[in-house]
């Protein structure tokens, strides 16, 4: 009887862990996908956000450890990301230079920088970001843990609608969309394509850096060389899935966070069989989403016109 009861809680635990994972694991996805969304709206792809994410995670952890202030770490992560964005923004706009190739190079370079300077921070424990505990009314530890929400998640929750409003209703948002959809028209408007793209890429990389901070300062809350497992790349697919709409990026990020939590959640109730395969769930999900949402016949609706062209 008692065993049956724990079994029941155990299975609820899986659902609970997945629900918690949507927020925990979804936070880095949210920031990176919003960053990628902004970048792609201006007509360039930044595959290098994977490297940016790693550099952000390392910087946040290192600065938090050295200064004792996790919030300084978050800001430093954003700045480190923005610096990588400067390289990508400048290089990918040189004539005959392919932005996808630059992204691949930036993955190698960014992860190299992160692992190089992150070596001393693998052992020590850095101060973590405070969490907002919404689960104190309950005395089930699993529920309490699941309802620990990071302020970064709330920040991301706020940025998504703001970015949506920015694209729709502001002058600068119009510039970004114009540069991304039709560079010729933007040039006719007297907008500097180079500057708009540069700023969009830098801002996008800033957000991705903060996404890295949420990895190392919130969940899983440590710095190892395997902390990011392709979230930066999945974000690129996620943006396609979200049709370049910041609000939909939010929902997609939650979905991906949940998929990522599947493996650990099953492991927590003792299902070890196929652990690695369940861990591959987000990648398989991404692949299937791309297979079902893409089409060889026409451009996906909502795609910035200049994306993937050399203009």
């Amino acid at each position, binding site marked *: 009887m008692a065993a049956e009861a724990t079994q029941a809680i155990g299975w609820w635990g899986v659902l609970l862990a997945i629900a918690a994972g949507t927020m925990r694991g979804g936070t880095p996805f949210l920031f990176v996908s919003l960053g990628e969304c902004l970048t792609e709206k201006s007509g360039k792809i930044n*595959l290098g956000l994977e490297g940016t994410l790693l550099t952000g995670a390392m910087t946040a952890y290192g600065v938090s450890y050295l200064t004792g202030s996790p919030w300084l770490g978050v800001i430093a992560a954003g700045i480190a990301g923005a610096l990588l964005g400067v*390289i990508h923004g400048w*290089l990918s706009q*040189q*004539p*005959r*230079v*392919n932005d*996808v*190739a*630059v992204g*691949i*190079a*930036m993955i*190698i*370079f*960014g*992860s*190299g*920088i*992160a*692992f*190089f300077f992150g*070596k001393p921070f693998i052992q020590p424990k850095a101060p973590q970001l405070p969490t907002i505990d919404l689960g104190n009314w309950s005395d089930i530890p699993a529920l309490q843990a699941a309802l620990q929400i990071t302020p970064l998640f709330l920040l991301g929750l706020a940025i998504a609608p703001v970015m949506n409003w920015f694209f729709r209703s502001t002058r600068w948002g119009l510039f970004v969309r114009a540069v991304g959809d039709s560079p010729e028209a933007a040039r006719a408007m007297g907008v500097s394509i180079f500057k708009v793209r540069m700023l969009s890429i830098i801002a996008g990389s800033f957000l991705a850096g903060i996404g890295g901070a949420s990895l190392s300062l919130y969940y899983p809350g440590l710095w190892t060389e395997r902390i990011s*497992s*392709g979230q930066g*790349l*999945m974000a*690129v*697919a996620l943006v*396609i899935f979200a049709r370049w709409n910041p609000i939909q990026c939010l929902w997609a990020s939650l979905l991906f966070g949940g998929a990522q939590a599947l493996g650990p959640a099953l492991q927590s109730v003792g299902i070890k*069989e*196929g*652990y*690695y*395969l369940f*861990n*591959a769930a987000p*990648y*398989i999900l*991404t*692949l299937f989403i*791309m*297979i079902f949402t*893409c*089409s*060889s*016949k026409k451009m996906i609706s909502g795609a910035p016109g200049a994306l993937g062209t050399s203009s």
Partner: protein
Amino acid sequence: MKSWRRTLEAFCLPFGAILFGLILFGIFCAAVGQNPLAVYGSIWKAGFGNWRTFQNTLIRAAPLMLTSLCTALPARLGLVIIGNEGALIIGGLAAVSIGLVLAGSAPPLIVQVGMAIMGMIAGGLWIASAGALRHYRGVNETISSLLLNYIAIALLNHLVGGPMRDPNSLNKPSTYPLPEADMLSNIPGTRVHWGLLLGVIACVIAYFLIQRTTFGFAARTAGGNIRAARIAGLSVGKLTVIVCFLGGACAGLAGMVEVAAVQGAANESLNVGYGYGGILVAFAARHNPLAAIVMSLLVGGILASGGVLQRSFGLPDATVLVFEGLIFLVVLYSDSLYGKFPFFKEKPVMSPPPPAPSAPTPTATT
């Protein structure tokens, strides 16, 4: 007479870029408190200094030549495939599976050929699926091939940690080892395995296939202008899938070589970055398979020097990644410099040649 100046340019710019990357890396080393000249010296000694160490470079160059083709061949069709790592892993897994099945019941040569064929088929199908998704569903091939990398790594961890695990491999889960007799042997008189020869042959075949055959011409046409290719009656879909298959097959063969000549079993050492190194080689060689041979030697030397940098300078093993990343970035930048140096223009100008391309500055133009 197809201007020798253009040919010279195609040689000078990538090498100039690598030289410039070296300088940047030196600045990086100086910034973290190491003597750049001493670091250069060690890299040279560890990678190219004498025959003994050069063999280490050759051992690493072999898989790089093969994996670089996984990016270089589809690039001729205008596709950016970066699933090298995944195809290598899948090829290695397939090779070790067939090797373990055949071992003992077939002569070593048959086992080896079987492993090579299975590795190539598995790696080929892996990348061909990315090509097919691209053509028939419009799925971005760069992202799908990258996702396939992660799926391959998960599959490797799953198989090596469970169904295919040798219970005797405690610290590092591995599959059952291949019998010594079925391993690829070394080229006589060296420590270098025959995989190197396979790499060189694959690159040479790829070069002739792309440059000297109708098939290669069709592929290049489709890569240049897909609409024109369709009008000319080329079946672009079939072409895409076949070229991706060939690229993936080369990476799969690299996995077989790693398993059958170096590791002796499939384990996580398959996933050590030959795939990403291969991408760098392909781009630095501008997707020319013959140039990829030379670039593989260079990158192989850099990889071979990783251990020495760690031991003599206390630099983390990620130093190699930083180095690779810097060179990759500079090589990409050098693409924008073609045609910018008056010295390489068709008509020689009277003014003295501009500074060597090793220090490319935008101001050196016009």
